[in-house]
C-alpha cells in the first residue's frame, strides 16, 4: 500500500542523509522525497512516499522515530489528508500542436509559464495521479522534459504536525 510519511526533524547538516540512509539500509522503498525548512527555521519537514504492508510501515515509523535528529513522524495516509505535487513540463508547441497544447493545459488547470516559438513550459499542480494522467494525455513525442517535486502532504482539519 502507498503511504505518505511526514517527518519533522532538526534542520542540521546530515539529517536528510540519516533518513535516506535508513530507507536504503533497511530495504524500504522511496517513491518520492521532498524536504524544506518549516516556518521554524530550526526544523525541516520531509515528506516521503513509500510502499509497504502495515507491518513494514509500522517498522518504518518506529525506525524513523529512533533517529536522534527526528522530532516527530506521522503516517499522513492513516487519515484524511491533502497531497500535492508540482510538475514543470516542457512540451513541443509548434504548428497545429500549439493550440491543442494550450487547450490541454487549460483542461488540467495548468499554466503556461514560458513560451518560445516552438515550446511551452506548463506548470501543473495536483495529486501525483493527476500529474500522471496529464502526461498520459499528451502525445509522448511532444514531451521534451519533465521535472516533478515529489509529494507534499498535510493533514486535514485539526490534524497538525508541529512541535
Amino acid at each position: 500500500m502507498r503511504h505518505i510519511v511526514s517527518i519533522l526533524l532538526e534542520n542540521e547538516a546530515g539529517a536528510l542523509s540519516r533518513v535516506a540512509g535508513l530507507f536504503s539500509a533497511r530495504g524500504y522503498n522511496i517513491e518520492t522525497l521532498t524536504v524544506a525548512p518549516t516556518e521554524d527555521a530550526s526544523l525541516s519537514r520531509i515528506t516521503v512516499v513509500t510502499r509497504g504492508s502495515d507491518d513494514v510501515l509500522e517498522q518504518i515509523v518506529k525506525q524513523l522515530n529512533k533517529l536522534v535528529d527526528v522530532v516527530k513522524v506521522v503516517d499522513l495516509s492513516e487519515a484524511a489528508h491533502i497531497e500535492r505535487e508540482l510538475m514543470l513540463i516542457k512540451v513541443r508547441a509548434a504548428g497545429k500542436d500549439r493550440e491543442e497544447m494550450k487547450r490541454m493545459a487549460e483542461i488540467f488547470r495548468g499554466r503556461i509559464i514560458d513560451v518560445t516559438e516552438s515550446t511551452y513550459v506548463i506548470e501543473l499542480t495536483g495529486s501525483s495521479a493527476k500529474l500522471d494522467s496529464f502526461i498520459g494525455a499528451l502525445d509522448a513525442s511532444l514531451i521534451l522534459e519533465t521535472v516533478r517535486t515529489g509529494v507534499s502532504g498535510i493533514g486535514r482539519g485539526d490534524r497538525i504536525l508541529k512541535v
Partner: protein
Amino acid sequence: MKISGAEIVIKCLHEEKVDYLFGFPGGSVLHIYDALFKQDRIKHILVRHEQAAVHAADAYARSSNRVGVVLVTSGPGVTNTITGLATAYMDSIPLVVLTGQVPTAYIGQDAFQECDTVGITRPCVKHNFLVKDVSDLAVTIKKAFMIATTGRPGPVVVDIPKDVTAQTCVFEYPNTVQMRSYNPVIKGHLGQIRKGAQLLLEAKRPIIYAGGGVILADASEKLTELAHRLGCPVTNTLMGLGGFPATDPQFVGMLGMHGTYEANMAMHHADVVLAIGARFDDRVIGDTAHFCAEPRKIIHIDIDPSSISKRVKVDIPIVGNASDILDEFLKLIESQTGRNPVLQDWWTRIEEWRSRQCLKYKKSDKIMPQYVIEKLYEITKGEAIITSDVGQHQMFSAQYYKFDKPRRWINSGGLGTMGVGLPFAMGACFANPGVTVACITGEGSIQMCIQELSTIKQFDLPIKVICLNNGYLGMVRQWQEMFYASRYSHTYVSSLPDFVKLAEAYGHVGIRVTRPEDVVPALQKALTEHRNDCVFMDFIIDPTANVFPMVAAGKGLTEIIFSEDL
C-alpha cells in the same frame, strides 16, 4: 578563562569520570594528545590497531556498566574503528568515540588523512556529530555521553576538526542536556504490565526468554526473583547468558541455533512467552513461519520500540527499561512457596527433554574442545570473565561455561566479529582488576587482532588465552561438512605460526597442549604459577569436533540435529 578545544575535550572526560581512554594518536588529534599528556587522571591505553581500541573500550563497558571511551585520528584512524563500532552497535554497547578530523577549511578537499567520518560511521552508530565550533564542543560531548548511555545504549561518534581543538573558549560543562528530538521511554505502561502479569499467572506452559537487555539494564536479580516467583523455565540468548544463573534448576540453557534441546522445545511449545530485552533474531528462533505456526501469547519487554513486532508479532508490547518494568511485575506477582503446582505437567515435559542430554559429546583420544571449557569452568569455579572470539569455540564456551552472574560473558553476538576476543579481554582486565580474564579463541580468530599481544605486554595484563586450535576455520568447516558435502573450500589454515614462540616473542608465556591428560595441568599452571602473566595456551584439539545440537539456518526451532545424527 578561555582554554583550548583540546583542553576542553580532556576536561569533559574528567567531568564524565572517565578513567581509561583507548586510543592511537595521529596528526589530527595531536592537540588533544598534548592536553592528555598534561594531566594524570585519565590513563591512556595505546593499542596497536584502532579496531582493538574500540573492542577494548567495548568490553570495558560490557564488563563494568560504564561508558567505553576511544580517541583516534582522522582518515584511516576512523576507518579502522568501523568494525568495532558496528560490533558495539549490534550489541547495544555504550561508547563515546572521539575522532580527529582535518581542519574545517580543508573538509571536502580530499586533504591528507581526510574521510567523511560522519557519513562513513552513520549506519553503524547510534548517533554522530561533527563539531564545527569550539563553543559547541562541551555540550556536544555531553550529548554524546547522554545518548550513548540512555534508552537503548549504543556507540556515539564525535568528530572534531583539528582547528576546533586549537580554538579557545570558556569551558562550561552542562549538568544535564535536553534534546527535543530524543526522549527514550523508561517506565513501562502499567496497563500493559497488568495484562502481562495476568497472562503469566494464567499460563500453563510459561517460559521466560531473556536477552542482553537484561544485562544492559542491570536487571538480573529482578529477573531471577520474578522467575522464582513464577516457577517457570528460563532460557537465555547468547547475549543474555549470565542474566539468569546457569546453575539454577529453572535454567534450561541457551536457546537458538546451538541452544539446548530443552530450551528450544520449551520455547516452541510454551503457551506464554515473556521476552525481556531480546529480539527474536534469526539465530534465536530460526524460521519465523515455523515458529509462528504454533499458537502462543507473547509479552515483549524492550526499551527499543522497533525491536517489538519486528520479526514476530507480539500480543503485549511493553516499551521501557527492563529493570523498571520487572519492578512493576514483582509488585503484581506474589511469591510462591515451592514450585507452582499448575506447572507440574510442563516441568515433566521439560525434564523429559532435558534427559536427552543434548550436550553430550563424543569421546576421542585427542583433546575435545568441550572438555577444555568444562575444565576451565571447574578450575575457575565459574568466576572468570570469559571473552570469546567468533566461531565454534564461541558456541562451546556458551554451552559449557556456566555463567551465574552477568557481565562475565563478553562476546560479539550480533555482528559476530572474529578478532574481538583478545582486545575484549584487555578491556575486561582494565575494568576488573584482580579478576581472572580468559579469552577463548581459535587459531583463525586470534590472528585477526593478534598484534594486541604487544599492548598486553605494555600494560602487564594477565590474560589467559585459550586457543582451541583445530587448524580449520571450524564453524565454516562444520557447515561445509554438513551442507556442502565436505567440500572444505578454503577453511584449512595452513602455515600457522608457532603460537608458543609467538607468545614468547611478545614477552608472554606460551604453552602447547596436545594430550587430553595435559589439559588440567596446563590450565592450573596458567592460573596459579603464571597467575600474573599473560599465558597463551595452544590446545591442539580434535579437528572433527562439531557444535551440537544445531538448528540449521532457515529451519524451525524444533528441527534439531544432534551429534549422533551425523
